[in-house]
């Protein structure tokens, strides 16, 4: 199997995944991909888009919604099966686990003045909850035919090869 890896992957992340490919004996080369991050050159109809954690995925779904949706539409129109692989680790091993995710932004506090007294309040009370993110991901899955997979950072390289049909 030879994997084409997108050139826009972060250096540090790429170094980690590259070393995992090396230990698995997988061939790869870096070249810009039209959508996603990893593609088996023998099967360009399946592409893996890597997300480092749920916070990144959450940002894609909310703040960068339009750009993200454009990419999903582009893949769908070209008949490409896009697989989003989120290497969140910990206790997120399938989509249903996202429902129970606690967005760490809820824990960010700031000082405010209430009734004339300084007190700590949530800085982002409107942050996306796990339940809301789960619902958005289900909609994306059903509307654009996207598959969501989850892994930890130690197994990303292996999971990519499995998803691309090793």
């Amino acid at each position: 199997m030879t994997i084409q890896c997108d050139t826009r992957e972060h250096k540090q992340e790429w170094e980690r995944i590259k070393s995992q490919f090396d230990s698995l004996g997988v061939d790869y080369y870096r070249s810009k991909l039209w959508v996603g991050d990893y593609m088996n050159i023998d099967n360009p109809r399946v592409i893996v888009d890597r997300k480092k954690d749920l916070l990144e995925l959450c940002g894609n779904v909310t703040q960068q919604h339009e750009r993200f949706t454009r990419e999903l539409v582009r893949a769908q129109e070209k008949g490409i099966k896009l697989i989003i692989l989120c290497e969140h680790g910990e206790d997120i091993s399938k989509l249903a686990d996202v429902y129970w995710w606690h967005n760490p932004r809820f824990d960010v506090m700031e000082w405010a003045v209430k009734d004339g007294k300084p007190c700590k309040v949530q800085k982002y009370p409107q942050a996306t909850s796990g339940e809301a993110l789960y619902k958005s991901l289900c909609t994306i899955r059903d509307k654009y035919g996207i598959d969501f997979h989850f892994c930890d950072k130690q197994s990303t390289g292996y999971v990519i090869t499995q998803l691309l049909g090793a």
Partner: protein
Amino acid sequence: MQKPNGYDEVQVGGDYTPIELGGHHLVIKGVKEQESKTEKPMVVVAFDTAKNDKQPGYFSDQFDKDIRPEKKWPANGTMYILTMDSQDANKVSKSFKSFITAFEHSNNCEAIWGEKFCDQFKGKKIGGVFGIVEEEYNGEVKKRHKVRWFCDDNRVDSANVPEPKLLNKAPKSADAFVNVPEGIDEEVPF
């Protein structure tokens, strides 16, 4: 017709495997503090069967297969526990203490009280003993497989199936009366 997205994931009608009775290894998905309908303090414990259980991921699979847009975590994978005794509001309820004790023994830890109380449970293991519970739904008595109590995760494999918890009253459908909806326009055919 093109194969609709998610076709393979949808459960066939009638294709339902109930959770087995007896002990199960569980993983706590989340705990929330809230008030009961009668404004009594309680905790809501949501759980799934653990990877090492005989039916792993049972409730998350059910949840995934539920295609309703406003779906909630399965009712059978949720337990509502009043924190104080229903007869004496100054006494801690037995079921709440049993839950905390089972959590502590299963994870070899001590519960942390205070502001972050609910956060400590997520992803932690606990045992659960499932039994038959009779419930009335739309005038019919249904038998459901529900968690009856939590236990130490190490005691799951030796747990016995509890006696069924039956409703005390006779089912409405058995009293020879037929419920006629109020305000019905048609004549009753008898």
